[in-house]
């Protein structure tokens, strides 16, 4: 049985300053965007300006004459060929496809006339005809191969250029002559539903709906004392990572590749680059010491990473490609929209007798569902007897969706919690009654530590805490019936759930701890810190076990060569890396005891750690930490910790890490019914979490999730013009995000349940905020503003319609 977390905890669960706080707050921390390498070149990407088009002409001659121009690479990956004959005089190259049983064995032949628009690469180095001989395996890029390529959104990548300065790269880009055949486009998902036969995206625009029914909704509606039918929805938003996507790529003399990448997955990024350029993974390194936010959109090099590395191998220089703001918004991922017609029936005792939803949304030109399909009607689905959910995906000519903090859950929450408050209004009861009545039951078969065995109790407890901290009893009033006057007050609530388990498949996450004879301790892991304070988590865990302070630990993370680790997604990093660090530190401690005990005449199993020292529990002798480690002599004490989902699921490990949390949030608002402006007053976020490692950073994660939820409720959305198919607010001016003075007081209440082990909570706190705010505005006005974000226009339009 694993030793597990210490019962008496000195550092764990306390408020500890980030060890990289000083470097971040004084601008000394170096992010990928800040990396300047000797002789580094700058890359820029040419993107299609049309929402749907085909390339008809490309002429790069003028661009190659622009001062400072160094190289050009088109987006289509150069194909591997075998040289049949290289004819220098005739300037032709005869090629045949690489024989491989893997491809459906279609042997191809091609003869290329070598000229300015043709690039030949061998072993990731540009070569000329003269260098080639028969049977050489080469990559051949023919620029004109782009002719006829179909482009599916305004921002679709075509090619990239590299130049000595960023300014010259932009000049070269603008000197490229390119022509398009503009094709029909659609950007509004509602239009896709209205035109079933549309085909303007790789797959037919309208994908077949997916339906699931439980019980008998029709019977449920008959049994209901009140039924409400309404439509709700929320538009597409962008991650708006402050540090945009991109990397600096640099090849070394013997064909190895190093990248400084803004990524949430150093190991996956290095592996992807190795695969793409045919380089053994051992010769590719991804460095991400500091990273300016990803929120789910940065899990690999992406096309800009491939282009930077491609331009770097052609020029022999480092190449930096970091997207600019407009590219980041239109091309680097988004959270898909979700619009739904909901019919909900219920009784005065709060029972929801039936819930039927028909919802659709757009993930852009490609992507999957736009709601979390198996989680509707969300938190309450296990308690609701009768429901039907139908979801249709409508592809449009806009950038493709990517995972964004709790994918699908905020949409699910809105489409469920709005309906609950509207039903409560019709039943003339406090919506909390409906929430309590339909909480998921405890699973009698699950053990009491885990979520499944106690989720009903946890939610009830959380609702009690939220009601107290928000002053719900005094403040709630029937919708629209608050005190009179132009400024209306309202309060609303919403619930959420999220996984947060450990991650990793068959290869576990690793953490290494080394203790040197000078007493210095180094902790190494390839994991990355996106702003989640993972660097400090590792330091705290190791310091706790070795009786030191977090600032004593030399934490080296963010390099893909420091062992295996999985990407930071699904709130899995802390529940994976903290246990790995725990086991590594415990192993290093035991290794230290084993190696030094004979030199101090002690038995390893009698030795124990106390703050700053090692004690022999039998002889009561003690040594200072430095004094004890000095005995290592030529030795080094080592520990390796491994953790992943499979290990965490082994019986007895639920005290080390587990998953699935709930969460309840309330929002209090003032709405100016004359101008439509909403001013947030107070948000309460009650969040269960397993063993808290760093209370300070844990509360930051919850408050940060709430603030992202506030932007989702009030300020941000991608606005795309139907005629041009171009986004009109791909910026930070009209893509509005709240500032400090737009924020209410945020009360974070952590429910510390150490017995559940470490659980990730990066994503859950952002799920229910927008729904709670929408319900608060409904409580204030007595009129539902159905579509988010709740702009002044939408509030005034709803009031005008609502006849208030």
């Amino acid at each position: 049985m694993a030793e597990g977390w210490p019962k008496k905890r000195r550092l764990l669960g306390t408020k500890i300053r980030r060890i990289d706080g000083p470097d971040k707050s004084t601008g000394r921390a170096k992010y990928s965007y800040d990396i300047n390498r000797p002789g580094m070149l700058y890359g820029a990407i040419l993107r299609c300006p049309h929402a749907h088009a085909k390339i008809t002409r490309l002429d790069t001659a003028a661009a190659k004459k622009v001062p400072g121009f160094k190289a050009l690479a088109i987006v289509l990956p150069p194909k591997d060929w075998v040289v049949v004959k290289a004819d220098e005089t005739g300037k032709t190259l005869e090629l045949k496809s690489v024989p491989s049983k893997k491809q459906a064995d279609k042997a191809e032949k091609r003869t290329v006339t070598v000229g300015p628009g043709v690039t030949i690469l061998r072993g990731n180095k540009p070569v000329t005809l003269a260098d080639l001989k028969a049977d050489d395996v080469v990559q051949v890029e023919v620029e004109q191969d782009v002719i006829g390529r179909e482009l599916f959104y305004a921002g679709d990548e075509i090619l990239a250029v590299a130049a000595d300065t960023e300014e010259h790269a932009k000049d070269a880009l603008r000197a490229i002559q390119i022509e398009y055949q503009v094709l029909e486009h659609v950007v509004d998902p509602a239009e896709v539903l209205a035109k079933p036969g549309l085909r303007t995206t790789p797959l037919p625009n309208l994908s077949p709906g997916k339906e699931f029914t439980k019980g008998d909704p029709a019977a449920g509606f008959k049994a209901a004392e009140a039924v409400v039918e309404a439509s709700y929805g929320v538009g597409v938003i962008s991650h708006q990572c402050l540090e945009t996507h991109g990397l600096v790529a640099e090849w070394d003399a013997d064909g190895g590749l190093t990248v400084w990448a803004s990524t949430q997955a150093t190991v996956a990024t290095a592996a992807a680059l190795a695969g793409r350029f045919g380089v053994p993974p051992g010769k590719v390194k991804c460095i991400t010491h500091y990273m300016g936010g990803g929120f789910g959109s940065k899990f690999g090099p992406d096309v800009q990473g491939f282009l930077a590395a491609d331009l770097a191998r052609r020029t022999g220089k480092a190449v930096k490609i970091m997207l600019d703001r407009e590219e980041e918004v239109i091309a680097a991922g988004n959270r898909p929209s979700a619009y739904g017609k909901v019919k909900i029936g219920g009784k005065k005792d709060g029972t929801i007798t039936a819930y039927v939803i028909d919802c659709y949304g757009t993930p852009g030109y490609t992507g999957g569902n736009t709601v979390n399909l198996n989680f509707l009607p969300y938190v309450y689905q296990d308690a609701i007897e009768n429901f039907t959910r139908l979801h249709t995906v409508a592809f449009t000519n806009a950038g493709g969706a990517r995972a964004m903090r709790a994918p699908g859950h905020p949409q699910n929450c809105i489409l469920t919690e709005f309906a609950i408050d509207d039903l409560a209004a019709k039943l003339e009861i406090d919506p909390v009654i409906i929430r309590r009545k339909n909480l998921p039951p405890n699973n009698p078969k699950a053990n009491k530590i885990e979520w499944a065995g106690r989720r009903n109790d946890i939610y009830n407890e959380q609702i009690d805490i939220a009601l107290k901290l928000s002053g719900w009893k005094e403040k709630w009033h029937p919708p629209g019936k608050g005190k009179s006057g132009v400024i209306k007050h309202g309060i609303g609530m919403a619930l959420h759930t999220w996984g947060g388990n450990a991650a990793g498949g068959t290869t576990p996450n690793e953490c290494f701890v080394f203790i040197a004879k000078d007493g210095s301790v180094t902790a190494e892991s390839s994991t990355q810190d996106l702003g989640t304070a993972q660097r400090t988590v590792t330091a705290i865990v190791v310091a706790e076990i070795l009786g030191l302070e977090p600032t004593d630990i030399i934490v080296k993370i963010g390099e893909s060569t420091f062992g295996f680790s999985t990407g930071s997604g699904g709130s899995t990093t802390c529940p994976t890396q903290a246990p790995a660090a725990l086991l590594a530190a415990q192993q290093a401690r035991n290794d230290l005891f084993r190696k030094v005990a004979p030199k101090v005449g002690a038995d390893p199993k009698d030795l124990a750690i106390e703050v700053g020292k090692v004690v022999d529990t039998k002889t009561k002798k003690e040594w200072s930490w430095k004094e004890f480690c000095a005995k290592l002599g030529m030795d080094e004490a080592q520990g390796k910790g491994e953790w992943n989902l499979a290990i965490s699921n082994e019986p007895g490990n639920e005290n080390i890490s587990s998953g699935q949390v709930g969460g309840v949030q309330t929002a209090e608002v003032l709405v100016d019914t004359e101008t439509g402006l909403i001013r947030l007053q107070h948000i309460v976020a009650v969040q269960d979490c397993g063993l808290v490692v760093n209370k300070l950073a844990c509360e930051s994660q919850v408050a940060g999730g709430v603030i992202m939820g506030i932007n989702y409720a009030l300020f941000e959305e991608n606005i795309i013009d139907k005629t041009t198919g171009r986004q009109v607010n791909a910026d930070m001016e009209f893509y509005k995000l709240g500032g400090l003075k737009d924020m209410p007081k945020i009360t974070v209440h952590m429910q510390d349940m150490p017995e559940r082990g470490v659980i990730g909570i990066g994503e859950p706190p952002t799920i229910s905020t927008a729904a709670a705010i929408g319900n608060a505005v409904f409580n204030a006005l007595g009129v539902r503003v159905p579509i988010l974000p709740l702009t002044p226009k939408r509030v005034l339009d709803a009031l005008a319609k609502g006849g208030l």
Partner: protein
Amino acid sequence: MELPQVGSTRCVHLQSKAMAVYGEGFAADPDFQNDVTDFTCLKTGRALGPDNGPVNFPQCCNTQRQCYEEY
């Protein structure tokens, strides 16, 4: 609740966030099970393959696809 079928013949270049986080155990990722995870092709770095076709589970398990490469 039908799970997206985890074909054994997926193309070696098919990548998704679920694989970056859960590795070979990607079928355990709730986002994968709810088909809200995004896919990219490791040959192009984009959500379209070398043949400019869509990148997702069914399309990238089709052994007849011109750019398909067995695992």
